[in-house]
């Protein structure tokens, strides 16, 4: 049996309500709340970035996996906000957590799906018998240009998953990826904010890739939506994942637990992986979970998990996602948020 042996998530404590962003740019708050189904989003502290978020999430994953960090043979961090253009984020993470130095490390990038890429490769290496354990992480501190639609959603957080063969808490039964050249969203080298193609990001990008990856995953597995207790999709806002899931045949009830974007925002590479983490916090042995990520550019990775008896032993060994999402929040006003996100031009 191969799958997740430990999982962990981390969300910063800071939040901003979408009302304040809308007010700043004279937009219609109610229309945004209704249209995008977003209420607030996480904001990283000034001393937090993709690396610190990954370290905290991976620390919790190690607590749940109860393994010697030295046994981890690979660490991959997927993000579109790696702090360095050149220097892999995981070089810092392994030294913080006592992993390696006999370890393979890489940074992955694929807009919002870099996290599931890291998970997929980590899983594949264990499956190939190359190593006992591998760690895949999706984390981001994403930025939307001021006044852009993305500013309402781009948030911060991440999740880490240790793949292994023993004491598996969620077995990976099937995977499937779907990729094409779709220029819906990009950021050129040296540019601070990304560009996107407006409405083009919906139907030909997000919906097409999630649907095709999901449909093929169902066919491959011989399962149908009613065989699953939970489903989670990439969450660029509150609305899209609900529509994509419905089109594949999943119900609101199946999507409820993993649907955290209205209060978390879009944590990019940490989006559907963090939804998965919220599901694992409550799932029962035997439950099946359907998950499809999406990254602009564009592609989707799909996974089918089956939860095992081990879940009851590890669940309480680290903080749960819903607790992090609902408690100990520190709200910022737009000015503080602009300062935190370095949107204010300062003298050197």
């Amino acid at each position, binding site marked *: 049996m191969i799958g997740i042996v430990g999982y962990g998530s981390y969300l*910063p*404590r*800071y939040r901003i309500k979408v009302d304040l962003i809308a007010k700043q740019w004279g937009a219609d708050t109610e229309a945004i709340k209704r249209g995008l189904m977003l209420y607030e989003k996480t904001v990283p*502290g*000034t*001393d*937090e*970035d993709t*690396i*610190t978020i990954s*370290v*905290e999430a991976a*620390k919790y994953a190690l607590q749940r996996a109860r393994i010697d960090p030295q046994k981890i043979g690979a660490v991959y961090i997927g993000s579109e906000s790696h*702090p*360095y253009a050149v220097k892999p984020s995981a070089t*810092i993470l392994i*030294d*913080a*957590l*006592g992993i390696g130095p006999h370890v393979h490390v890489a940074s992955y990038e694929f807009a919002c799906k870099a996290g599931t890429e890291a998970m997929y490769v980590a899983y594949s290496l264990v499956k190939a018998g190359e190593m006992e354990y591998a760690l895949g992480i999706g984390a981001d501190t994403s930025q939307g240009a001021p006044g852009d639609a993305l500013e309402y959603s781009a948030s911060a957080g991440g999740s880490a998953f240790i793949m292994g063969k023993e004491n598996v808490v969620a077995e990976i039964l099937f995977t499937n990826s779907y990729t094409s050249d779709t220029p819906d969203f990009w950021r050129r080298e040296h540019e601070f904010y990304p560009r996107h193609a407006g409405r083009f990001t919906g139907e030909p990008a997000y919906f097409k890739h999630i649907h095709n990856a999901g449909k093929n995953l169902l066919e491959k597995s011989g399962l149908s939506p009613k065989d699953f207790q939970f489903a989670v999709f990439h969450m660029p806002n509150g609305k899209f994942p609900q529509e994509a899931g419905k089109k594949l045949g999943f119900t609101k009830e199946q999507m409820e637990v993993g649907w955290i974007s209205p209060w978390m925002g879009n944590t990019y590479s940490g989006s559907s992986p963090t939804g998965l983490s919220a599901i694992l916090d409550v799932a029962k042995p035997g439950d099946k979970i359907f998950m499809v990520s999406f990254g602009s550019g564009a592609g989707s990775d799909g996974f089918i998990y089956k939860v095992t008896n081990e879940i009851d032993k590890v669940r309480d060994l680290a903080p749960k996602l819903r607790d992090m999402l609902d408690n100990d929040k*520190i709200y910022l006003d737009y000015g503080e948020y602009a*300062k935190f996100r370095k949107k204010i031009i*300062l003298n*050197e």
Partner: protein
Amino acid sequence: MISPRYHREIPQRYRLEAGKCKQCGNISFPPRLVCPKCKSKSFETVQLGREGKILTFTIIRVGPDKFSKETPYVVAIIELNDGVRLTAQVSDCDVDKVAIGDKVKLVFRKIQDEGKSGLHCYGYKAVLT
């Protein structure tokens, strides 16, 4: 340019590695060459626990140049559960609500940037629990 020093201090800043005297058991953080208690020169490396409490603290309202935009912030002397004391910034807090005796844990955070194009320097900071 502080990069070589930053690199040398990684075991302490990232993993809280301390030196435990093999003769008297005294823990030195950061590690020392000679035990301040019994003058022994033989140590084993131990990793400190991450939980403790605030012994005393100060609120920085006028910071050094590099941190002048971060004020006000709290710098505290923290006693970890294994008895070791260290100085750390207390992050994610309302500075006026921090109190002596508050329970904290040490988390991994960015400490500073070496200017616009230099290294990001990471290490431990405390957060209230």
